[in-house]
């Protein structure tokens, strides 16, 4: 594993700059195909609203994947991720016209042994926190 970020150069409290990830319906269709999760709440608006949802919603795992991407883009090597967990606190609603965005930021929450650090993530969409207790443990260089 060859993370490009050095453990000694990272401090608790250090912030990782926010990034914005656009989401459109086509992304959810692609994600359904790639993941095998074809629940129609993620691509069929009539179905989604019939079961009480405001509109089509993104797969939770799609949102989690964007958080993963945020971390692995920072750390350099995706193989450096030791642990990654999230709670899905609100839905990412994806309207037909123009889709939506997920904004993700991070902060170094803790430094552990063996060059590992804990990155706490914040993810927001449509004015809501869509992930809480989102943390990735990564091994730095």
């Amino acid at each position: 594993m060859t993370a490009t970020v050095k453990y000694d150069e990272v401090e608790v409290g250090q912030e990782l700059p926010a990034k914005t990830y656009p989401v459109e319906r086509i992304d959810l269709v692609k994600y359904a195909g790639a993941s095998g999760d074809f629940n129609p709440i993620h691509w069929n608006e009539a179905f989604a609203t019939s079961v009480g949802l405001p509109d089509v919603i993104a797969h939770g795992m799609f949102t989690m994947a964007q958080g993963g991407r945020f971390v692995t883009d920072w750390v350099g090597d995706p193989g450096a991720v030791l642990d990654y967990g999230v709670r899905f606190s609100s839905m990412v609603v994806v309207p037909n016209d123009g889709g939506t965005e997920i904004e993700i930021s991070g902060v170094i929450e803790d430094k552990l042994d063996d060059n590992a650090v804990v990155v706490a993530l914040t993810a927001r969409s449509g004015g809501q926190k869509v992930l809480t207790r989102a943390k990735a443990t990564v091994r730095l260089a």
Partner: protein
Amino acid sequence: MALNRDFIGRAFPPSEPYEVTRLKIREFADAIGDLNPIYRDPEAAKAAGHPDVIAPPTFPIVISISGASLTDPELGLNYAMVVHGEQRFEYRRPLHAGDLVTAESTIAGIRSIGRNERLDLQTVITTVDGEHVCTAHNVIIERGA
């Protein structure tokens, strides 16, 4: 609808072996919009110390989904009302192209939260040679009608 508590502790048999391929990793990386070359280019992956292209951190969901049959009518899960509550992966190492793995899932718990039902599923992903690669913890919520 209340889920059948008899399923608490239910262990499912190991899934059929799943072969992690370069093409599937690329498809998944494309679907999440991630252009990292370590998911796409075997040389870039080797330069980073991996035997072949590796899978994104959330890729094991593809395998863990196959490890449990939550469609058993006896469980009483209404799939249309299911949303994902929590997800966690503990990695021993990244999955890479060429891995042949199986998933073994256990229903760790079922409980009510207000009008919703919460089901905790734990899935251990192991190579067919017995190497533990990843453990996935999955919480699904069945929304109350």
